[in-house]
């Protein structure tokens, strides 16, 4: 068992357990902390796959920014642990879980069929230095430059939208004419 194999199983267990934590924790704030753990685990998996830049970005963006916002919003709501964390309806629940199980089976069989003999070779394949990041930057600014600019515009729209939403004095009926 090589180092990578051990790391993979370790990280797989960490991510799956904490992902299940997101699903089953009754208190959303614990769900959030569980999700942080998942994000860090996924980031470590990225590092294992040689995507060092993405591993860093994953932690900075998800754990360092998005989840901070989630936790802060939960503090605003002052959410207590919910007794009924899941939606009502036995029949609906069975139907949902059943359809998800069918989807899982489909994906699994697709993976089984398509990945016969496709292996990731860890030894000596990936370059763990600065070079992949430079190549990524190069590609981003030549081949994908249009998408990059569009995303810049998208982020501007999101910033304006967030400000506008926080301006609204609560809900859609706030400024109705009486």
């Amino acid at each position: 068992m090589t180092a990578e194999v051990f790391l993979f199983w370790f990280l797989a267990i960490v991510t799956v357990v904490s992902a299940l934590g997101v699903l089953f924790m009754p208190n959303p704030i614990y769900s959030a902390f569980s999700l942080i753990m998942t994000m860090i685990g996924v980031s470590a998996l990225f590092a294992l796959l040689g995507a060092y830049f993405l591993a860093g970005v994953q932690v900075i963006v998800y754990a360092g920014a998005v989840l901070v916002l989630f936790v802060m919003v939960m503090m605003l709501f002052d959410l207590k642990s919910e007794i009924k964390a899941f939606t009502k309806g036995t029949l609906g629940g069975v139907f949902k879980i059943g359809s998800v199980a069918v989807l899982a089976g489909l994906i699994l069989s697709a993976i089984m069929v398509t990945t016969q003999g496709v292996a990731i070779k860890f030894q000596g394949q990936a370059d763990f230095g600065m070079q992949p990041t430079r190549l990524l930057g190069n590609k981003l600014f030549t081949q994908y430059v249009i998408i990059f600019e569009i995303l810049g515009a998208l982020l501007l729209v999101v910033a304006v939208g967030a400000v506008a939403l926080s301006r609204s004095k609560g809900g859609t009926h706030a400024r109705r004419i009486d």
Partner: protein
Amino acid sequence: MLAESISEIGLGHFLVLSMILFITGMLGVLLRKNILTVLMSIELMLNAINLSFVAYARSLNQLDGQIIVFFIMTIAAAEAGVGLALVVAVFKRFKEVNIRFFEHLKG
């Protein structure tokens, strides 16, 4: 066969792991009542997709997959920003963050 699949890590392993995370996120979206948990589950699903993209990028030895992941992360962050701004606005109005709130939106 089993021993081999434990000691040899291939693309399939990462894809199956990605699928498990995706399914967990999906169940969270479908089953949880709290809208914040639903949003977090969506983030989890996007993460699962990212993982499979990076695994493919490594397997095919191409960086395009990684760039797509970079874009997905941007979209996910934007989605979280707008989604939470909406949730805060809704909470200020109705003091309620459960999914059943959306029943009020009918007609």
